[in-house]
């Protein structure tokens, strides 16, 4: 008889296929009830379109690659700048107070509304999309790091003080480790936002990338292929999130957000 804990461990491996099967069944049912093929193509057609799409080399070498590079480069820029700005604003209280209204204003702007501007400024190529992805990834990372820098436990600070620790010793033994979970929390949101930024950028300009393929198949009223591109996008987003999650497990195995089962 397996224990409750063992069951909990295997639960997602059983529940996920079941949920997918339920969704597919409902999909098939909706199609058989007469929903238009342009609204909802049957799963079989989408599957065929997906196989067809995956057999086209340009999908991988041009479109998937473009979107991947844009999202990853944008995420990288957002990560580096978000950590730097967040750490500085977290430490320099007067500066944070001075720029807070501006930061809040920038934050509440629906940033995808700025996409046309970036297309005007940086053209239809990759640059404008990388910048959009970077801006979208920047805010959650910066805000989390700012919070993290300020959340160092005062009791831990007392320990370092009582041990005569120097400035750099306190940084490496305490502040760095203490902020890392916040960095990863920001990264998990940031990577998802970066993919969104890249795709929305591709919607509006250029002729490469999975976002462009979405618009292209829509214009051709090719519903099965549209659905297939969305599946590819979902897989891309999932893999990128998974990569960040693996990095987190490796870097902060001690943290509550990482299950003990994964490290022992």
């Amino acid at each position, binding site marked *: 008889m397996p224990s409750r804990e063992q069951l909990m461990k295997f639960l997602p491996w059983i529940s996920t296929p079941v949920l997918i099967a339920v969704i597919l069944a409902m999909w098939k049912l909706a199609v058989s009830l007469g929903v238009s093929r342009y609204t909802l193509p049957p799963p079989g057609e989408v599957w065929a379109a997906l196989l067809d799409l995956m057999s086209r080399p340009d999908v991988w070498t041009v479109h998937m690659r473009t979107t991947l590079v844009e999202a990853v480069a944008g995420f990288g820029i957002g990560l580096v700048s978000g950590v730097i700005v967040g750490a500085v604003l977290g430490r320099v209280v007067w500066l944070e107070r001075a720029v807070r209204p501006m930061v809040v204003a920038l934050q509440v702007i629906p940033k995808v509304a700025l996409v046309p501007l970036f297309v005007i400024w940086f053209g239809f190529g990759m640059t404008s999309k990388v910048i959009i992805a970077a801006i979208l990834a920047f805010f959650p990372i910066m805000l989390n790091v700012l919070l993290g820098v300020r959340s160092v*436990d005062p*009791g*831990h600070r*007392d*320990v370092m*003080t*009582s*041990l*005569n*620790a120097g400035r750099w*010793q306190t940084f490496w*033994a*305490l502040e760095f*480790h*203490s902020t*890392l979970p916040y960095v990863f929390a920001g990264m998990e949101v940031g990577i998802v936002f970066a993919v969104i930024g890249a795709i929305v950028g591709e919607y509006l300009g250029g002729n490469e990338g999975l976002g462009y393929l979405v618009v292209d198949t829509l214009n051709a009223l090719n519903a099965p292929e549209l659905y297939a591109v969305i599946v590819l996008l979902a897989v891309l987003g999932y893999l990128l999130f998974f990569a960040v999650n693996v990095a987190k497990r490796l870097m*902060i195995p*001690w*943290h*509550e957000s990482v299950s*003990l089962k994964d490290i022992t």
Partner: protein
Amino acid sequence: MTQQGLKTTPTPEIEAECADGQAAPSGSAAGAELELVDVSKEFHSRSGSVVALKDITLTIRRREFVALVGRSGCGKTTMLRILAGLTHPTRGHVLAGGRPLWRDGGRDPETVGRLGIVFQDAHLFPWYSVEENIALPLKLRGVGKAERLARAHELCALVGLSGFERSYPRELSGGMRQRAAIARALSYRPGVLLMDEPFGALDALTREKMNLELQSLATASESTVVLVTHSIREAVFLADRVVLLSPRPGRIRSVTEVDFPRPRQLDVEAEPRFQEIVRTLRRQLDEEA
């Protein structure tokens, strides 16, 4: 999680501790280790200022075990933090080993380096394993990795954490975490151990075991110990002198000598004289309420 059995009598490890521990000057149990001279502390906040401590003068002798007792908010913790150099007194002087703890507005690192502190919460670093936590003070002092880990393992054995060297703090029980914190404070063999209700969060049985263990540790390592506690029984059981503080403003109400021979066993608490001391101290506490 099962508790490791705590040793109640000196073991070979503890004797080794004794041999290379902080050496006291020959025959000078009377030497002053810590001195508070006319120390006052005020805290200022939006709702006004509070006098936490007023005109405290106290001399703690080398290798003496002193317990600070009093009601919540009487300034015990503030007094310990002032002794530890974590809080600057508003007025007065703090001396450790005859040297001022504060010089030119800064803490004197050499003097602070002789103090070991155990806080109310263990305050272990969750990102370090037990052995890394215990070895942290040595790492900060530039001791090599092999040497400091060897010392950490020795201390794990001493405080009953053998087998948990590689565990993370979150895998330990509260009592085990507190023992790891004590091991961390002992790692650099401080001459003075300052403890702020280290056993406050433990159940009664574990607490009794920890008291016996602390007594043998203090004797074996020839340390001076200042212990802040809520429990009058704990204070009388462990201390050579019990300092009772009265609140608002925090002052020394009484200093009581306790001269039961060491090592004391738990049954000392059954002695009429022990109970008499506890009763007297309790009466003094109640008079303030």
